[in-house]
């Protein structure tokens, strides 16, 4: 089982690096070409969320991404923010999205989760096993036929 691990300071510019790596490793793991746009978007959303949380809580610690290739292509994005995250977030409907009172940040977060949930069939969001933080775990079918 090949594994690639990436960690980066919580800055927006590195989210692009994470997308780049995530898609390169997916391609090499044999994820279908027509799924790679989803992989790119989903890894980007998970990392964007993690970076936003680290900045919001003033955490200089790195965001951690682990890509592994054993049967399926699995990507874990780990943040260290002291919140209880989950997939519980109800998707925002068009009326809520258009409301003046919804801040751009809240909208972006809601839309980010909608994209994750919409594009990743095999998605888990749960507290990390040790310490503080949340893990977003995504998996796609892989393996060269």
């Amino acid at each position, binding site marked *: 089982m090949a594994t690639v691990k990436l960690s980066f300071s919580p800055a*927006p510019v590195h989210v692009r690096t994470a997308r780049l790596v995530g898609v390169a490793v997916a391609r090499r793991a044999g994820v279908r070409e027509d799924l790679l746009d989803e992989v*790119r978007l989903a890894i980007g959303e998970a990392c964007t969320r993690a970076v936003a949380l680290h900045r919001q809580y003033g955490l200089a610690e790195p965001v951690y991404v682990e890509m592994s290739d054993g049967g399926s292509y699995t990507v874990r994005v780990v943040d260290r923010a002291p919140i209880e995250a989950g997939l519980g977030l109800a998707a925002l409907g068009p009326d809520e999205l258009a409301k003046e009172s919804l801040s751009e940040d809240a909208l972006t977060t809601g*839309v980010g989760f909608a994209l994750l949930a919409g594009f990743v069939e095999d998605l888990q969001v749960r507290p990390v096993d040790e310490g503080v933080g949340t893990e977003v775990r995504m998996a796609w079918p892989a393996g060269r036929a």
Partner: protein
Amino acid sequence: MELSLATHAVGEHTVLSVGGEVDVYTAPRLRERLIELIDGGAHHVVVDLGRVDFLDSTGLGVLVGALKRLRSAGGSFALVCDKEPLLKIFRITALDQVFPLHPTVDAAIAADSAGA
């Protein structure tokens, strides 16, 4: 790859053509430009996403911000997009029901002028 932004006027409308990647890193530049345009008097804005390669939630947030800003000022805001992968992003987020989406700039301007 890099974000590109170009503006031109078509009658009453201001068309902002966006290219490259609109993501958490570049979205602030898009936000700035939209605010500049609106503060500078643009009242009817059409954003052409035709050459956008990548759009994430941050970019979508900026677009919704511009829509709200213009609506509350009595203006109008529309998007041009005809690429299926991008359209899917709008459908999944229900933002296809928030934005006027058109396949071409001409269609966006025609629809907006008829509605105005």
